[in-house]
């Protein structure tokens, strides 16, 4: 007899308030019953699964936290400990892991570049913060050159040391700007684009020549997470436009030469492993250049990464382009848009929105695959780890190093994929619910 039921007679018939469900049909018990023990085989699976987790999680937690050594000056301090992880190793090598061999007194430069990136990037990525467009313009048109000058220093162009040439260059910039302004007055897109575009390029060259007046840091000193991020961000930023161009080129049936060239590039680079492309970049680009000219290894690795992932992105973007009905292009043509405008205003915004998951997946692959540059001898974070754990002072600490690097990559890639899922939902304008 339910205790609540004692005054059942106090209610008229049919007016009795609902009783709470039986204990097995509510709360934790109900949840357990439906989710873990609904059939006999599910119960067995649950028990095996729990035992498996019991085997893995407590020892891992103990290794990571419980019996870990947090302060150490060499692996001897850790051997004396309780047998847990030796995080003192990561602490002692932290600067190396983060910046590689970057000059110790110049570490503020990558730090500043990073802070600037976060400062400009967060408003672009989080739509709630106002001024997205302004920050995006800064991020795309100014930040790359500022970051380049911060990280590498000035990139000297021989001709700029000549004063006469410098004056001519200045006149050129003014002329181009004037041309652009004329184009703006007459609403001539080609004139405007050419004028301002070339003026921008000329000013950038001029800026890079002096940089920010900072001394040069050779790219061979780049390493660790810094190199990984530089490689990943640069190849992401450059290969997306390349991929879009290749995808558009592949569909340009009225220009067979361009179409077959794009098909050739895309299919070739998708058929071979990245490592052979990197080998090609490192071994063949020097052969292709005239004697006395050379790129440094970071630039050659970047060229390889960009072309390789450009081909992958091209296929992703092509998938989006194919999903746009022909009527969209025809409608754009009927209101008088030319090819460039119809692509920029009608087709690409829709196509790119569809393939956001694919694009972000490629970005994640790119971030992970920058680690391959260790095979061609660059000191990215994986190579730094690999060489740190063979250091006599820290011998036998593979798991600490790998766990740290793995966690870094995991955070980077996982947050990217979560962001893309959120973006997908936000841009889903077709949603009817």
């Amino acid at each position: 007899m339910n205790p609540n039921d004692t005054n059942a007679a106090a209610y008229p018939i049919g007016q009795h308030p609902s009783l709470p469900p039986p204990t097995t049909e509510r709360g934790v018990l109900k949840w357990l019953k439906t989710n873990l023990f609904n059939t006999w085989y599910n119960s067995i699976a649950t028990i095996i699964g729990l035992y498996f987790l019991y085997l893995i999680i407590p020892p891992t937690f103990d290794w990571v936290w419980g019996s870990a050594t947090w302060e150490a000056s060499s692996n001897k301090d850790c051997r004396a400990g309780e047998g847990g992880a030796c995080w003192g190793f990561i602490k002692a090598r932290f600067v190396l892991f983060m910046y590689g061999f970057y000059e110790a007194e110049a570490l503020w430069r990558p730090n500043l570049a990073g802070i600037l990136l976060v400062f400009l990037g967060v408003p672009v990525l989080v739509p709630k913060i106002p001024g997205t467009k302004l920050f995006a313009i800064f991020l795309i048109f100014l930040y790359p050159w500022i970051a380049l000058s911060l990280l590498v220093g000035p990139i000297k162009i021989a001709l700029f040391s000549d004063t006469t040439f410098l004056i001519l260059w200045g006149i050129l910039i003014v002329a181009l700007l004037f041309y652009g302004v004329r184009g703006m007055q007459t609403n001539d897109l080609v004139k405007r684009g050419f004028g301002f575009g070339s003026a921008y390029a000329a000013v950038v060259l001029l800026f890079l020549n002096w940089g920010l007046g900072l001394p040069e840091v050779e790219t061979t000193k780049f390493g660790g997470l810094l190199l990984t991020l530089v490689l990943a961000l640069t190849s992401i930023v450059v290969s997306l436009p390349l991929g879009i161009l290749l995808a558009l080129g592949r569909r340009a049936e009225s220009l067979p030469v361009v179409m077959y060239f794009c098909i050739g590039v895309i299919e070739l680079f998708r058929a071979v492993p990245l490592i052979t492309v990197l080998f090609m970049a490192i071994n063949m680009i020097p052969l292709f250049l005239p004697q006395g000219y050379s790129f440094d290894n970071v630039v050659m690795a970047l060229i390889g990464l960009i072309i390789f992932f450009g081909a992958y992105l091209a296929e992703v973007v092509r998938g989006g382009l194919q999903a746009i009905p022909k009527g969209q292009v025809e409608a754009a043509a009927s209101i008088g848009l030319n090819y460039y405008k119809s692509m920029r205003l009608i087709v690409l915004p829709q196509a790119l929105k569809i393939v956001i998951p694919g694009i972000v997946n490629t970005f994640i692959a790119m971030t992970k695959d920058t680690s391959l540059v260790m095979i061609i001898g660059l000191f990215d974070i994986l190579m730094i780890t690999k060489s740190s754990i063979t250091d006599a002072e820290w011998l036998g600490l593979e798991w600490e190093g790998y766990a740290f690097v793995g966690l870094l990559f995991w955070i980077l890639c996982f947050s990217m994929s979560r962001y893309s899922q959120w973006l997908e939902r936000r841009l889903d304008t077709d949603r009817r619910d």
Partner: protein
Amino acid sequence: MINRLVGLWYDQNFRRLFLQVLAVLAFAYFGYFIFDNTSTNLERLNIQPGFQFMNEIAGFKPTTDGMNFTGFDVNKSTHKDVFIVGIFNTLLLAIVGIILATILGFVMGILRLSSNLIISFISSAYVEGMRNIPLLLWILIWYFGVILAGPNVRQSINLFDTIFVNKRYLAVPQPIYSDAIIYVCVGLFIALIATIFLKKWAKKRLEREGKDTPVFLASAFMFIFIPYTFLIISGNSITWEFPVLKGFNYINGIQLPANYVAMLMALVFYTGAYIAEVVRAGILSVTSGQIDAARSVGLREAQINRFVIIPQALRVIIPPLTSQYLNLTKNSSLAIAIGYTDLVNVFTGISLMQTGNALEIIMLTMAFYASVSILISIFMNWFNKHVAIVER
């Protein structure tokens, strides 16, 4: 005059032609520029262009003694043989990897859909952990962290006296060539033909009488039974050479080196996670209406799986599965990081260093991977057509 020129510029056909001629010219000039520089550079570096280097004696050992299947001889074999050894080792890794990764991926993909929260949590943790960490790091973890931390040769882990695992290699038995192998092959062939006929007959029977035949079970039985009968009738038996510990090493059998095992584990677990996602997406793509409909016509759970879910899911699964197989094959080239003797390591690495014929070697390597890609694509396209939906 100028007006005519401007008019020409706004003529679509002329503009297209003009742009293309420009592209061809630019491309030709670029090609000439590269060709010219390359030939000057090669002359300067004193490298003979062409494929003559393939016939030179290599003078290094591109594989371990324990798995020298092509009979490589350091004193006689040339760079051509290095190329062949490299291809063989790459394929050995890729094929075994594809088989194991498929099994693991299907199991994990199905487990992730389980209604049991613990099981689906384990599967999701596996997938998210694998996919967000670079393969190269997994390779290093498996090699330096797991395999090299294994037991010494004399303390090998002994699995039924046939397989021995230690930190240096995985020793497995090797079949010895004899007449028995021919009998087994003939038996397998007969079983294959019988299976094809059985399948056709079963299909006819299903259409005519509506009766189901257990084709899979029957053919599995035939594949085991027929070769075995042949062996017994002919009085032969397959002899296996078992690994034996002698002194400080195992002799006989095949010794798969530690870096092969590490590569295999890393590739299988990494690709398995991607395949699990592919499988999950495939199964989820079968709408619940299909399952409701199947229940309403009275199919049992096993029949729903077999006739409704699997055929429809396979259609969605196969194209991305193909690209995962291709990825696994291409990713096997990371073996160079831990020194497994695959094609990129021995040919693009060591042979290139020795001869300096970068162009030819990289072209050959790329040609190999490209042809493997094409072959797998052709096969999977054929298979895809086989399972594709038949529309009116």
